[in-house]
């Protein structure tokens, strides 16, 4: 399997993303240690800096060739001072195209109001662009800052040596100007841009101290929000061009099914219909599952004509998939002995000597990402060219899949990355782009394919349905002495390996390494074959691992007769693994701050029916603790307030970070309370937002976001906020009402 594929697969589990991505991480970490820069004059006479990947560095050529030097980011300062920063990582609302360029601008001493940001097309020069695993900031923070710092040093050197003829250390840079410290004279970055391009690149530019930051750790407005509020921001659905045709698609409702027959006549008879295209299943990861598309003059006509197709499917092997029965089977699989993964200490003795024992089974359903923008792209396949405009998280995966399909070099596929109207993991998989390519090739025109909401919900990739069974033992003092953790869920690995029959040992890495002190411990995996496409969904497996660990710890605390916060601290303190010392401390600190902000110690004074629940979860190298306050009345659960504490090391953009947490609460609340994808007879029953009731505005609680300034290097925030919400909510509901929810969502809609 290629590196790209390994990387894609490893994103599957956050744990593995850290371990298995070793190759890629090495590259990136090497960059951060010894990356280097090169300048090039470009047409406008400005200064361009590219961050270069050592692995891909070829000989320094002449100035023109340096654009081929595989830089992974650019700074471009024009002669009028306008500064353009490219972002190679994909933007889907998580704010990366503000956070990283903000860090560049900080080191550059640029005026943020003079900076514009552009999304990079698919290109090796941007390095690894597959945007997932909350990894963008972790990987790119140092290289991007060094790019900014190098540019600043060159601007200073230009002013010092070429204009003022003084040593560079008698100059400084501030707010888009270089200043002569001797006399206060100033030269603007625009004035210096061309001169700076002739300066050699510093090998190891000096980065700023934390106390000197202008933008890092501050609140920065989104660079593109002015376009959003006037409807000018361009998404995957928005590409227009001469000759554009519009397509609508339907897929076999059951995974693995095949087209038996299609009667196209009524559809083709409709005015405005151009063609009907059968798309065969393409057996590569992220290829189409197969479908039938109608091409027309506009999307609406295509959608109407699609309804007139008379299609017969051979539904295949998965036609009896029924999630209710499947979940019950998963529960059976985890409530009986399964395959042992990791064993520590002596669990058997711990259990037989227990003063008290407790066991519980936690379950969760499939989830659909349902970003507000459904899958959409425009593809134009010509004999000698293929150009794509797509909302995507993985432009190189598009190049790979289309390259394979069209039998062309992946680098010959031109991929323009548009803004994604939400993605949450869905747009990592480019089946919809592949389909647009198949259609374009047949009709010989640029084609915009927009999946309908119904197709998005019914034939997508789904977060795993899951079951976990935990048994715990306590000694007479209420210390946890033993912990058995069995899991079963169809894993993402099934996308890449059809004979997968359940989670791999790596898939339970996060269970084995959970930073509680569990000296006598065993993890086991139960059988769980996939009957649909399983995909990464924001926070991935941390959703159900966070739910089970933090719920069960809460349950155990009551069993032990202890305050949940004290009990959690005790569980962390019991961890004597030196390698997890930092995790223990940071988890506890985040938890303590959440408890303090939520007035945990005064919770007994809350009005009748209210309660506070706590949870902390470490995922994607970031710590997030939540204190959720609820009011429970019968079956009615009203979330009043969430105090959310983040320790992601150095925060880049505090406003963006807070937004990610607000969003994580909203998404966490949907999946905790109401959203579940149900399969019956092999097919998804839900179809649109009426029966997949995502959270709406009246349910939004007050979310307060607090930061722990732990002094560590920055880590990501796109996903880690999702995991602690559901267990904190479950714990709050229990505190308020004595009712314990162990199945996600708590209140599924009957569909």
């Amino acid at each position, binding site marked *: 399997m290629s590196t790209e594929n390994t990387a894609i697969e490893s994103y599957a589990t956050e744990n593995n993303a850290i371990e298995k991505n070793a190759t890629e991480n090495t590259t990136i970490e090497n960059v951060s240690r010894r990356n280097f820069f090169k300048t090039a004059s470009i047409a406008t006479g400005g200064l361009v800096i590219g961050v270069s990947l050592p692995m891909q560095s070829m000989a320094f050529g002449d100035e023109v060739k340096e654009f081929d030097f595989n830089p992974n980011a650019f700074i471009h300062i024009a002669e009028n001072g306008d500064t353009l920063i490219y972002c190679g990582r994909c933007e889907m609302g*998580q704010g990366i195209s503000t956070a990283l360029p903000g860090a560049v601008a900080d080191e550059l001493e640029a005026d943020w109001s003079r900076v514009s940001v552009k999304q990079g097309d698919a290109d090796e020069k941007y390095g690894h662009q597959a945007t997932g695993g909350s990894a963008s900031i972790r990987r790119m923070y140092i290289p991007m800052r060094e790019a900014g710092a190098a540019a600043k040093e060159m601007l200073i050197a230009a002013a010092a040596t070429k204009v003022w003829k003084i040593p560079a250390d008698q100059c400084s840079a501030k707010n888009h100007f270089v200043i002569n410290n001797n006399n206060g004279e100033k030269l603007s970055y625009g004035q210096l841009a061309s001169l700076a391009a002739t300066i050699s690149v510093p090998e190891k530019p000096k980065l700023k101290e934390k106390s000197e930051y202008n933008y890092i750790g501050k609140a920065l407005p989104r660079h593109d929000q002015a376009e959003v509020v006037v409807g000018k921001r361009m998404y995957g659905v928005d590409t227009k061009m001469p000759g554009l045709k519009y397509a609508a698609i339907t897929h076999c409702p059951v995974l693995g099914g095949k087209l038996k027959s299609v009667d196209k006549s009524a559809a083709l008879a409709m005015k405005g219909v151009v063609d009907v295209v059968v798309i065969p299943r393409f057996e590569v990861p992220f290829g189409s599952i197969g479908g039938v598309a109608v091409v027309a003059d506009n999307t609406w006509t295509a959608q109407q004509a699609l309804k007139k197709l008379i299609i017969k499917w051979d539904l295949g092997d998965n036609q009896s998939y029924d999630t209710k029965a499947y979940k019950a089977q998963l529960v059976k699989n985890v409530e009986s002995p399964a395959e042992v993964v990791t064993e520590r200490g002596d669990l058997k003795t711990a259990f037989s000597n227990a003063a008290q024992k407790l066991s519980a089974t936690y379950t969760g359903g499939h989830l659909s990402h349902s970003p507000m923008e459904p899958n959409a792209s425009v593809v134009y396949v010509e004999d000698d060219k293929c150009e794509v405009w797509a909302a995507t998280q993985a432009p190189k995966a598009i190049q790979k899949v289309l390259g394979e399909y069209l039998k062309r070099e992946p680098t010959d596929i031109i991929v323009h990355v548009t803004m994604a109207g939400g993605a949450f993991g869905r747009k990592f998989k480019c089946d919809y782009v592949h389909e647009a390519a198949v259609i374009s090739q047949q009709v010989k025109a640029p084609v915009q394919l927009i999946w309908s909401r119904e197709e998005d919900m019914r034939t997508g990739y789904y977060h795993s349905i899951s079951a976990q069974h935990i048994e715990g033992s306590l000694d007479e003092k209420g210390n946890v002495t033993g912990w058995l953790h069995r899991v079963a869920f169809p894993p993402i690995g099934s996308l890449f390996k059809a004979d997968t029959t359940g989670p791999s040992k790596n898939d339970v890495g996060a269970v084995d390494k959970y930073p509680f002190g569990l000296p006598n411990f065993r993890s086991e995996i139960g059988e769980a074959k996939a009957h649909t496409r399983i995909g990464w969904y924001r926070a991935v497996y941390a959703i159900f691992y966070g739910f089970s660990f933090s719920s069960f710890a809460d349950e155990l605390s009551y069993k032990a007769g202890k305050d949940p916060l004290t009990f959690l601290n005790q569980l962390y303190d019991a961890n004597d693994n030196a390698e997890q010392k930092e995790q223990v401390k940071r988890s506890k600190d985040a938890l303590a701050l959440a408890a303090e902000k939520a007035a945990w110690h005064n919770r007994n004074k809350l009005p009748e029916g209210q309660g506070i629940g706590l949870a902390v979860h470490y995922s994607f190298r970031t710590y997030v603790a939540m204190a959720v306050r609820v009011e429970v009345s019968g079956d009615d659960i009203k979330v009043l307030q969430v105090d959310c504490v983040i320790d992601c090391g150095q925060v880049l953009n505090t406003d963006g970070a807070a937004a990610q947490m607000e969003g994580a609460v909203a998404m966490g609340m949907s999946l905790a309370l109401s959203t579940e994808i149900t399969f019956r007879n092999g097919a998804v029953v839900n179809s649109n937002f009426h029966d997949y009731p995502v959270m709406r505005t009246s349910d939004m609680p007050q979310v307060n976001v607090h930061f722990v300034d732990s002094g560590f290097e920055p880590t990501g925030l796109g996903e880690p906020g999702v995991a602690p919400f559901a267990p904190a909510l479950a714990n709050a509901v229990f505190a308020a009402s004595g009712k314990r929810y162990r199945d996600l969502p708590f209140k599924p809609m009957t569909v």
Partner: protein
Amino acid sequence: MNKTIIINGEKQNIDVDEDMPLLWFLRDRLEKTGTKYGCGTGLCGACTVHVDGVATRSCVIPVGVLAGKSITTIEGLSENGDHPLQKAWLENNVPQCGYCQSGQIMNAASLLNENPTPNAEEIDSAMQGNICRCGTYQRIKKAISQVADDLAREVS
């Protein structure tokens, strides 16, 4: 002779099948893409525009029945993107992905047309039909309240 419709002050011929929802007339015929497709059934609010000043889901209303009516889309809400709500959206850094926000803003603008001083419950109730998967609800409410407070001050 085609029927006509006014879009952001400009007269347009309805030169498509009259059953075509306004959304697709805007997006695919006029190529005004600020109005978004989200669900196609009036459930999510991403396609919200104003018909004679009133918030309407453009994905479910046939363009033919709107002959003679005046439509405002996000592109036409203000001359220079300076409607008080647009400004409040920026001040509060509301958008994440931003996809639903044209519908959110258009819906909020219609609310304030009808009720310039809504309270929190009235805001919730009016905005209940507009989904945001990124979860920007807290900021949306704050932005609307801020504009409503400003309007209340002007009135008093």
